[in-house]
């Protein structure tokens, strides 16, 4: 469990985004504390992905503010957010299948050899990347026979593990995971869930977008319920039942405003 007095690492106030006549974000708020797993749940069209895209820099909101580690930030692209220490694992778009595990881990952030070979001839430092990749995967408890094998030879769970490991390796503040257990079997899912806990235990904040309520309740410290482009509720996981969360999410029940502030 996370520390309720821990400072907010990432905070958003009044985020708005319209696509033509469709309002995706209608002044939504968001927050996540240091070392916390924050689940984001919501029905299709509630604005989950728009919220996540705004936080990861893939979308520029029409209005609202984003604060990271106490400072206002303006992301104009995914690279901005990454430079600021926010890593995102996109559903289905995380990895290059024909490339090796090491290459995927360092894609876009390759190490070059020291000296002229690296600076002038721009030659890659394969040994260093492979060594660091192996160390990193071992620390996170991901068992892989060979880090030079192509990602497409791995199982779905192992692939997701690599994607999460990559984000954990480079994130300084927040890791955003979009449906990390979708399309995974029971055993593979639990492997990925364990991994997410270990990432949190390293002091990173995790934002977990998921449709899978048992996974959300097994993992999250708090739950952000998104509905109609706004935050319908922000609750401590232990204070709410799965049925209540789903009821708020679908609009069957309005979350009492007083209870909501208590929960926070």
């Amino acid at each position, binding site marked *: 469990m996370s520390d309720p007095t821990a400072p907010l690492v990432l905070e958003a106030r009044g985020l708005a985004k319209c696509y033509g006549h469709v309002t995706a974000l209608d002044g939504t708020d968001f927050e996540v504390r240091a070392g916390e797993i924050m689940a984001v749940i919501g029905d299709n069209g509630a604005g989950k992905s728009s919220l996540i895209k705004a936080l990861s820099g893939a979308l520029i909101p029409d209005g609202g503010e984003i604060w990271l580690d106490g400072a206002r930030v303006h992301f104009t692209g995914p690279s901005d957010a990454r430079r600021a220490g926010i890593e995102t694992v996109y559903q289905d778009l995380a990895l*290059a299948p024909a490339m090796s595990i090491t290459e995927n881990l360092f894609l*876009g952030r390759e190490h070059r050899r020291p000296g002229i070979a690296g600076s002038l001839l721009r030659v890659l430092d394969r040994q260093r990347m492979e060594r660091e990749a192996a160390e990193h995967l071992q620390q996170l408890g991901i068992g892989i026979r060979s880090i030079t094998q192509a990602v497409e030879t791995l199982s779905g769970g192992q692939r997701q593990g690599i994607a999460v490991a990559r984000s954990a390796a480079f994130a300084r503040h927040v890791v955003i995971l979009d449906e990390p257990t979708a399309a995974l079997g029971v055993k593979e899912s639990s492997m990925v869930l364990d991994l997410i806990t270990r990432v949190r235990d390293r002091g990173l904040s995790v934002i977990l977008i998921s449709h899978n309520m048992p996974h959300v309740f097994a993992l999250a410290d708090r739950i952000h319920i998104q509905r109609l482009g706004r935050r319908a509720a922000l609750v401590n996981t232990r204070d709410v039942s799965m049925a209540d969360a789903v009821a708020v999410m679908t609009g069957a029940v309005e979350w009492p405003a007083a209870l909501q502030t208590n929960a926070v």
Partner: protein
Amino acid sequence: MIVRRLAYAGPLVALLLACTFFALQSPRFLTGANLSLVLQQVMVVGVLAIGQTLVILTGGIDLACGMIMALGSITMSLLAVKHGWHPAVAIAGGMSVTTLAGMVNGLLVTRIKLPPFIVTLGTMNIAFAVTQLVSRAQTFTDLPPLLTWLGHGVRMGNTPIAYGALAMLLLYGFAFVLLRETAAGRHVYAVGNNLESARLAGINTNRLLLSVYMLSGLCAGVAALLSIARTGVGDPQSGQTENLDTVTAVVLGGTSLFGGRGIVVGSLVGALIVGVFRNGLTLMGVSSVYQILVTGVLVILAVATDQWSRKS
């Protein structure tokens, strides 16, 4: 893993089998002079295929490379013969034109977001028309020696080796190291694997694609010079078969047409397979129509093998 390794070794095995077959059929095949001839016959397609490999690895295709090459060779001969420019400057001018043509392809693909097939189909026709217009459909002869220098060579014993063939091998070595050992090279594969995930990984995919199409244009410029060196003239009708021969070479070399998989040296092997079949069948006295037939069958076999190896 083993299957994939085999997929890379496959083209080489096919080349060796073809060589063995023709060596048994004709005593002249395995002579130094003949093998050197094969190398000269494939050097134009070989160099074009380097650019084609880069483009195909990113998931695109360059249908215009042959025509851009013709435009380059006409530019070089025109500047040197008609305008009396120094041959070195004329060569540089021709290569600039082909690189610019590649840049036009790249800009249309990255800025206007048109499919590479359509873009290069269009520029193929445009380059052909411009070549005919500026040359008035005439062949340039009496070229200065520097333009045909790559057609000469050194002798190793009794075997002549053209400078052009050496240049091709050098370029393959360069492209191999670039693709394997540099971040930009690995990003070519990443873009071909999945453009969107490469972009999200922080790769400037537009800049990468633009450079790839420009490099293909530059390869067409080098191929233009090789084509002049080989034939001794600036021919506005050149490049027409080379256009698709490069695709044949790349596919025979084991590079996937869907992008993201393959090795550039395979395209050299692919070009050599086509060259060896043409040369060997000629030595056996088989009509050139059958050579084209065999090439067609080989391409289909190569793609079928590629798909089959991917499934298993």
